């Protein structure tokens, strides 16, 4: 029974990672860049939602909406100001700029919200369910997180596969130049990707802080790295891959800290990642690209 409850915790954490990883993987697939500032957008989303509830007394759903809107605007602004001028620059230059943006967000948050951690009230008031005479408790936040993850996954898959914008995204990720020749507006497609990724980050931020209720300016960075790892784990650029990678990573982390060592749980996560990449170098769901001479 304890194993089952660890597993459920793992799935809950993994769902959060999966939602964050979606943002990483979409941006990577389309703009071919590692958006290191993504983890800090999560933190901004959580702060906005916290202040929307505590200062303005908005209901939970409205505060999440506000956070998503703020993060969308933030994500698009970051893309316009920092990444767009570097579209043709070497990828490492873009990477360093992303790191700069990440530092900027963390330090701006520190000035705006203070560096001391605040206790984040859970966004889910629902008690959860008890099974097997209370031996197994599934908390409300776990249920909401997993549901949110499934809904987002289905919506995103439909969006990418069925809508015109989604088709444009797939076209841009395959070949930017050819897509432009076919009349796809590459810049607005990339902006759209950042908008979706950042809105998802805001939702992930609220869910993450509801489950682990300390919020401080550096809250986003470690989950950001983990989610990035999850995206690579599942095969970067692939949406179902991000989902599976996130879930597996969450489960491995929780089980690792329960059965091996709390201190070494991160080491276990990364060791599994290395083994997977050595066996399947493109990640679990990644496509193998043939190299042409």
């Amino acid at each position, binding site marked *: 029974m304890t194993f089952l409850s660890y597993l459920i915790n793992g799935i809950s954490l993994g769902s959060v990672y999966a939602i964050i990883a979606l943002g990483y993987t979409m941006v*990577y697939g389309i703009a071919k860049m*590692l958006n290191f500032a993504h983890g800090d957008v999560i933190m901004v989303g959580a702060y906005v939602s916290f202040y929307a509830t505590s200062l303005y007394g908005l209901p939970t759903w409205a505060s999440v909406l506000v956070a998503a809107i703020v993060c969308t605007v933030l994500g698009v602004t970051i893309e316009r100001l*920092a990444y767009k*001028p*570097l579209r*043709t*620059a*070497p990828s*490492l*230059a873009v*990477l*360093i*700029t992303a*790191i*700069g*943006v990440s*530092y*900027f967000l*963390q*330090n*701006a948050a*520190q*000035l705006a919200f203070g560096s001391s951690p605040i206790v984040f009230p859970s966004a889910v008031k629902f008690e959860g369910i008890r099974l097997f005479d209370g031996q197994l408790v599934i908390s409300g936040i776990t249920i909401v997180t997993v549901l949110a993850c499934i809904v987002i996954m289905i919506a995103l898959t439909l969006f990418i596969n069925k809508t015109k914008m989604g088709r444009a995204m797939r076209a841009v990720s395959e070949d930017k130049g050819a897509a432009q020749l076919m009349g796809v507006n590459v810049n607005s497609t990339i902006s759209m990707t950042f908008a979706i990724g950042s809105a998802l980050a805001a939702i992930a931020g609220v869910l993450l802080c509801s489950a682990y209720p300390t919020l401080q300016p550096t809250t986003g960075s470690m989950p950001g*790295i983990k989610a*990035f*790892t999850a995206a*690579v784990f599942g095969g*970067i650029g692939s949406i179902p891959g991000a989902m599976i990678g996130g879930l597996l990573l969450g489960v491995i982390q929780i089980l690792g800290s329960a059965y091996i*060592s709390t*201190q*070494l749980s*991160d*080491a276990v996560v*990364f*060791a599994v*990642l*290395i083994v997977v*990449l*050595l066996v399947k*170098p*493109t*990640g679990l769901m990644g496509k193998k690209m043939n*190299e042409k*001479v």
Partner: protein
Amino acid sequence: MLQKKKFSDYSRSCIVTYAIVIAAFIIISVLKTMGMLSSLLSGLLVPVCAYIVAAIALNLTVGIMGELSLGHAGFMSVGCFSGVLVAQSLADVIPFAPVRLVVAMVIGALLAGVMGIIIGVPALRLKGDYLAIVTLAFGEIIKNLMQCVYVGKDVNGLHFGMKDQMALGMDAATGKMLINGPMGTVSVTKISTFTSGFVLILITLFLVFNFMNSRTGRAVMALRDNRIAAESVGIHSTKVKLIAFLFSAMLAGAAGALYGLNYSSIGPVKFDYNTSILILVFVVLGGIGNMRGSIIAAAILTVLPEMLREFSDYRMLAYAILLIVMMLANNSKFKKNFMEKRNLKQLERKEAAARKEATEHGNA
């Protein structure tokens, strides 16, 4: 005609780099003896040296080998803790501090090199972002493992453990912790000096410049420029890449030992992912593949946050903005045009000189 050009462009560029480092050392030493250096700045001298060496080491991986490593702080960590351990436990055997420092750095470099092989053999099979994420993962694993390492020393010798201080079972009277898990190194005798850091930089430069011009170094660069073409002329890709990576790891290890022996206490958290990124920032900002650039960038970017102290709270914010602006300016159209014009002018000047020489020869 041939007599006139004593050095190739490559060696001239190396000599300029050596000259800059030596000149900087002399100027700073003079300023230091005249007491014109604030205590803040003189405290930064050894870390700057260590970061410079680490940046050169990473530049070897990123610039010369063309592979992104996000885990170089892990090698610094291994070098730091093994170096400190060696220096602390040999304190009675080798009383002369500089020799102890050298031994510590050599051992630190060797152990970091061993770690480099352990990481390099699997990781170098991967490419691009996947290699980056594996090195990041290894860096985090090293950090995590270091947080569980306990080493103590008493009359019976060294005690190792992975659990806690009590589990070491040391002699109560003479027992002394050397490495204390998450606390890191404990009450280290600081033996790193600016001069030793300077010598380490010179040795590093000497090794790296010679490596770049060696058979292996050229093979690595050929692989970077075109892997398939290089392999088709018989370059063993894994082998030469592993040599370069090993070399890079060893230099980072030596830098770690220098860094660790400059502080009385240092924790494993110091060498986390953020430090790896910091070193990468030095390399990219200084110019990928350009050793001189790495040196200058490492020096400026280590001193800059301290210089920005008057902005107090806005210090790191200003640093972040500067970083973004520098990257944007470095890739802007304005700079591209400027560089094109400059190159054109240089070309014209060269042509004019050649023409002049040709006419002189004709006259003679």
